[in-house]
């Protein structure tokens, strides 16, 4: 792997860095410290800018109208785009767009017409419904939502939890058990319209994140046409699993971006702040914190770029993506914690972004597969698939 950025990568990351500093950071001064949305007029204006920059819909494949930007560059962009207060969960407040539910790129033509194309032009939004109260790390066994064939339809009963965006979505991907005896080979993915009778968003699940919530869903005799099966019947596990590995790279990148921004703020502050007649930066205790931040960030960055590089080349990258997610989420947490300590009392106020990052970074060790599961994935790759 070539460790130097190409000229094009330097140019693109520089553009995104300027965009964050000149467009996003000034707006954040007037937003609630926990906000994850821009006022509509600002959102529209900035989306036009990202379109003009040729960087809108970065994760959309070129054949569907996305820009032709490789995965390593997209990872570098994700690192830049998260360097602001809301950046961990709402990088640039979504004005770079996204691919939405990438699984729909594999959908049938009719499904793409009805769901994918409206989603890509922002007319419809979707949710990803995998996790259930019985667990999310082991979907092959935890899924208890049941789908039973009835003529040309399926009848779905059950529930999901920790589902983002379901209360606002027009449709969603719902994973349900279609063969109770088959474990991972007995799960099917359905595209479900949220106005289907029997679809209920029962409650908001409040978490450490104050702005972006999850929801709990219930399905009561929800009738879904067979034409809305995504992929093959009993082939849903592969669809879910594919997303989990791929998502870990941008997930790690967001943690790195926030860690870089926190570290940058601490590097500016430490030489200015005086204690006992000398700047904080002259104290070895503080210097070592800054050194540890630098090392944490570099380790996480290289592991994440290595995972992106392997994925880009079409090599197996499950182990590398797991390492990137594991290291970046833990390193990000440590960096934010140290920066908060350097800022002292100010570090825990809402005047600075550390307290938000601290709360949100804690979730990252659990989301997209807890870090214990990442270690399990890495161990299985090192020791063999039979490891239990």
């Amino acid at each position: 792997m070539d460790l130097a950025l190409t000229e094009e990568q330097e140019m693109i990351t520089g553009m995104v860095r300027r965009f964050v500093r000149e467009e996003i950071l000034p707006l954040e001064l007037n937003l609630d410290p926990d906000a994850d949305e821009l006022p509509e007029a600002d959102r529209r204006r900035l989306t036009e800018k990202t379109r003009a920059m040729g960087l809108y819909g970065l994760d959309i494949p070129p054949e569907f109208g996305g820009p032709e930007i490789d995965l390593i560059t997209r990872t570098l962009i994700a690192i830049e785009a998260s360097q602001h207060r809301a950046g961990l969960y709402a990088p640039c407040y979504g004005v770079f767009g996204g691919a939405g539910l990438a699984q729909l790129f594999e959908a049938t033509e009719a499904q793409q017409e009805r769901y994918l194309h409206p989603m890509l032009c922002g007319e419809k939004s979707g949710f990803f419904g995998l996790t259930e109260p019985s667990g999310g790390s082991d979907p092959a066994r935890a899924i208890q939502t049941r789908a039973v064939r009835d003529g040309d339809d399926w009848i779905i009963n059950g529930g999901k939890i920790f589902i983002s965006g379901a209360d606002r979505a027009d449709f969603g991907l719902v994973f349900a058990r279609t063969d109770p005896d088959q474990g991972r080979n007995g799960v099917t993915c359905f595209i479900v319209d949220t106005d289907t009778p029997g679809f209920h968003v029962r409650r908001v699940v409040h978490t450490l994140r104050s702005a972006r919530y999850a929801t709990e869903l219930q399905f009561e005799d929800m009738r879904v046409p067979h034409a809305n099966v995504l992929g093959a019947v009993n082939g849903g596990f592969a669809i879910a699993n594919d997303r989990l590995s791929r998502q870990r790279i941008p997930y790690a990148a967001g943690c790195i971006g926030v860690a870089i921004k926190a570290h940058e703020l601490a590097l500016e502050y430490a030489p200015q702040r005086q204690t006992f007649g000398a700047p904080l930066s002259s104290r070895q205790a503080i210097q070592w914190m800054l050194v540890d931040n630098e090392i944490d960030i570099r380790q996480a960055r290289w592991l994440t770029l290595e995972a992106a590089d392997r994925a880009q080349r079409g090599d197996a990258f499950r182990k590398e993506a797991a390492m990137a997610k594991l290291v970046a989420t833990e390193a990000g947490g440590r960096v934010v914690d140290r920066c908060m300590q350097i800022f002292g009392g100010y570090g825990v106020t809402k005047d600075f972004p550390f307290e938000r990052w601290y709360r949100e970074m804690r979730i990252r060790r659990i989301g997209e597969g807890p870090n214990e599961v990442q270690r399990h994935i890495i161990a299985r790759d090192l020791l063999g698939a039979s490891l239990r």
Partner: protein
Amino acid sequence: MPIRLDKPWLPLDAAADLPGQLGVFELADEAGRVQYIGCAGGRSRFGLRSEVPAAAQRVPEARRFRVEVTMAYLTRHRELLMAHGADQGALPPHNEPISRLGRLSPR
């Protein structure tokens, strides 16, 4: 935590004794009909103590209020608006429409 706010109603003059914490609140008219659902967020000067009286000045029908102290003030605010929408079929009369407010069907 119940989805709908279930704290006791208080007269408006009790707002001066509210804590300076962050949270959500409801204003109701004499008959107890909710007229406005608001929140005291991270940029409010004195949290609920400043936000409840300020909102009451903009709602002439307001006679009483109730509050819930919470750090998850943004998500709780949206949840209360969605629950009100599910129960009453509309937002409270003094709440402006919110872009992309979700739908709940609470039990």
